């Protein structure tokens, strides 16, 4: 009986290590790796062939045949698995969307399996390895005793890896992974490249797989392709999802309940014929449980948001730093209310501060052209902006305003012409590059990381976070803990300044449309931009919030940030913009105060449209057709 429980616990621990590893890859990072169990197998094989010594039995061959001590073998197994994992990642993940990646990993799993099964000299093909020596060497240990030893070892490893998992989760590195998982584009818009953190987590997860494999082979003393069919990866994934992906408690729960408990229960079901039926029944049940979980409780039994980490993510709402929202239906520009909070961090390392609006040209757009297929969206657009000013970008639908903003934010590269930021030509840098140069943006439809708390959504934007480096996250917390606290304070202040103090710990997906827009502003500011691009920041927002946004944007400009915003609401523009640029048909039609623009003959004609047979104002371009 004791042996039975010990056996259960050992396998539970080892399976938990695997699921925790898979959680790092899929739960934390959203990378689906169906080849996961192959890394377990590789870990097992490497551990064996580096410790077993050469084969003395005729007909059995396998590579290496070294005789390292058992612990070296296990570690080597982990390392080889990690390296292979990183390699596979480099070759595949960078290029594929999520479901195709999954298909490729299934293919990889099968190919490796096929190779090992068929090619004898590698690991003795389908016969596999057996009589793997125990870690206790020649000492005479009872089966129960040996199990206990392995149990201690496995439990110890599990504890270690749970600690690793926890460290990763609570660090900026973990936050970065979550952010990439939720919305890769938004993360890129704030200067982050995805593949570096992903390859790190792929490697770590594979390392865990390899270690688990090593432990397993020393426990059962044998290993063959029959032990690592593709089914096993699937069972791990099912355990992860059902238990609750994204957190290690869920992983362990899944491992113990779905894998172990189910296996034991299946043993007691009156057998109907042969052993294969038990395994098949187990697989059917697992498959059904998985489908049902995905449908009715997709976050799993222990969802990520239950973690105390999330509940504690935000400091309790402190003394009211709240801004009272101005009274409704106020058409005059609201008086400047609270000034923007002084930065909790030292002055940003940007070029010497210039007094706002002090004639220093920050952005110069020169003859930029961009066409989609045959249609010219931006047809030679030129204008410039002084630092610390707020410029409204207006014009009828199809004028090219949004395309211009996409070019300025780096998502599109100008096909001809130049964008000059503070004296430097910056076309074609991509969103990450532009972000590093101090360009931040909000989106036409607010893009939030729905499952993460509001405060994390904002913190992700701050540049230069030392804790995002995986090694620093794991081994040198002292290097980033202080920075993290400072960032948290700053994010809290910013969110308070925008009226969101009581929503810090909420998942961002539960915010209303107006609140999301406010959060986006906080997020953009967190990136310490020099240039802030806003695409319809008040669409779908209540008038009071609209006024708050206008107020805040003016304060942002007063602190030296240059703002370009696309807007249609004339009242909002009158509150917020220093002047407006009117675009029509991809070009600048005129520039001046809002009142001047509204009276301008050509502007009115642009908004009204062209009559039959009439040519358009001074430009008269020939359009290919733009929607």
């Amino acid at each position, binding site marked *: 009986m004791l042996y039975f429980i010990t056996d259960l616990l050992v396998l539970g621990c080892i399976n938990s290590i695997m699921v925790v590893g898979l959680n790092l890859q899929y739960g934390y990072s*959203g990378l*689906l790796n*169906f080849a996961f169990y192959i890394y377990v197998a590789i870990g097992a094989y490497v551990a064996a062939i580096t410790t077993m010594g050469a084969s003395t039995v005729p007909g059995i061959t396998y590579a290496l045949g070294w005789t390292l001590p058992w612990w070296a073998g296990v570690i080597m197994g982990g390392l080889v698995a990690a390296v292979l994992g990183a390699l596979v990642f480099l*070759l*595949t993940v960078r*290029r*594929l*969307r*999520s*479901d*195709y990646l*999954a*298909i*490729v990993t*299934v*293919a*990889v799993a*099968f*190919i490796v399996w*096929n*190779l090992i*099964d*068929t090619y004898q000299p590698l690991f003795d093909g389908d016969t596999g390895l057996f009589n793997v020596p125990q870690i206790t060497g020649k000492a005479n240990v009872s089966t129960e005793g040996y199990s206990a030893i392995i149990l201690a070892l496995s439990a110890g490893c599990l504890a270690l890896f749970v600690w690793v998992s926890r460290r990763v989760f609570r660090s900026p590195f973990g936050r970065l992974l979550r952010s990439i998982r939720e919305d890769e584009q938004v993360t890129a818009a704030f200067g982050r490249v995805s593949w570096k953190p992903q390859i790190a987590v792929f490697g770590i997860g594979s390392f865990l797989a390899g270690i688990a494999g090593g432990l397993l082979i020393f426990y059962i003393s044998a290993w063959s392709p029959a032990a690592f069919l593709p*089914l096993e990866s*699937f069972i791990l*994934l*099912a355990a992860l*999802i059902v238990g609750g992906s994204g957190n290690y408690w869920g992983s362990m729960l899944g491992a113990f309940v779905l894998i172990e408990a189910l296996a034991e229960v299946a043993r007691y079901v009156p057998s*109907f*014929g*042969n052993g*294969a*039926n038990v*395994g*098949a*029944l187990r*697989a*059917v049940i*697992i*498959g*059904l449980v*998985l*489908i049902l979980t*995905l*449908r009715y409780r*997709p976050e799993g039994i222990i969802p990520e948001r239950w973690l105390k980490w999330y509940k504690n993510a935000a400091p309790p709402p402190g003394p009211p730093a709240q801004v009272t929202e101005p009274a409704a239906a106020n058409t005059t520009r609201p008086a400047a209310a609270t000034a923007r909070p002084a930065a909790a961090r030292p002055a940003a390392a940007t070029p010497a501060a210039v007094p706002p609006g002090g004639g220093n040209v920050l952005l110069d757009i020169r003859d930029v052209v961009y066409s989609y297929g045959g249609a010219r969206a931006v047809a030679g657009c030129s204008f410039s902006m002084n630092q610390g000013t707020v410029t409204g970008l207006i014009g009828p639908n199809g004028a090219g305003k949004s395309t211009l903003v996409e070019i300025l934010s780096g998502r599109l590269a100008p096909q001809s012409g130049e964008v000059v930021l503070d004296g430097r030509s910056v076309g074609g840098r991509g969103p990450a590059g532009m972000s590093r140069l101090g360009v931040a943006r909000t989106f036409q439809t607010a893009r939030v990381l729905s499952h993460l708390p509001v405060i994390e959504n904002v913190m992700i934007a701050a540049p230069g976070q030392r804790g995002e480096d995986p090694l620093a996250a794991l081994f040198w917390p002292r290097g980033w803990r202080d920075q993290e606290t400072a960032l948290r304070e700053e994010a809290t202040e910013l969110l308070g300044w925008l009226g969101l103090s009581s929503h810090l710990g909420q998942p961002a997906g539960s915010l209303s449309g107006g609140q999301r827009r406010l959060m986006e502003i906080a997020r953009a500011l967190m990136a310490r931009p020099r240039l802030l691009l806003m695409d319809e920041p008040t669409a779908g927002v209540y008038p009071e919030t609209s006024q708050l946004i206008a107020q805040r944007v003016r304060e942002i400009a007063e602190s030296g940030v240059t703002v370009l915003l696309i807007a249609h609401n004339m009242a909002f523009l009158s509150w917020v913009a220093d002047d407006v640029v009117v675009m029509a048909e991809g070009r600048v039609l005129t520039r001046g105060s809002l009142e001047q623009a509204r009276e301008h003959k050509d502007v009115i004609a642009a908004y009204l449209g062209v009559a039959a047979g009439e040519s358009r104002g001074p430009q008269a371009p020939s359009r290919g057709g733009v929607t």
Partner: protein
Amino acid sequence: MSHLLQAVGFGLVTASIVALAAVAVSLQVSVTNFFNFAYGDFMSFGAYVAWTASNQGVNFYLSVVLGGIAVGVLGVLANYLVFRPFMKRGVRPVTLLIAGVGLSFVVQNALILIWTPAPRRFSLNLGNALHLGPFLLTPGDLIMIGAAVTLLVLLHLMLSYTKFGKAIRATSNNIDLARSCGIDSDRVISLTWFVAGLFTAVAGVGLVLQESTLSPTTGFTELFVIFGAVILGGIGRPYGAMLGALIVGVLTEVSGAYVNGAYKTSIAFGVVIVLLLFRPQGLIKARGLIS
């Protein structure tokens, strides 16, 4: 050389089988936008139903039809119970894939429970192989090729000339516009799954007859060959899938003649990896599914 040509001949038989399955998959993908990972097991299921009926003394061809209907119904049920609820909710493509993998394991293992894992013998002895030009084919092979060609022609006629076939094409092209024209897209999708099921079952039977043995994993191991054909032809393009099947079928047989047979399936898997990495749009431009 004759060795090579013979391999090509076998390739044509494989291509016929793969074509039926690949066209089925492509058709279904074109209206629903995701891969059903359980298709291989659907094929096995169809073959088992046909085998059971045949064993009970039912006429062979009728057994195949029964298998077809069984898989058709299975497809409709899978759509209704598993996939459609997810799609209505709007989930990530990965989730549908995982659900498909789950379904695959359920079906495959259900087959083991019902029919036991022991391989069954399923063959149709219609005479010895004949030399037809450079090819060496049995009458059974010829019937397979003939059946595939016939079914594909019928499908083409349906898609081109019948109201329902055009409704399928409209739905796959632009589902919202199709609805605006009064087309009941849910019904179209259900019926597409049924037709795909029919084809899948016939492919499954063909697959089994090729090796004369039937086991629960028969279909699953062929899955990636089918995926390869679908991707090669352009995902969501049934006509492309026919071409893809031809290429993949001949290629696997020819390569199998030169390389250890055990690696044949790995080659198919490898081809899929290479395709997805370097040319996911296929030889013929796929529609909108690659992002």
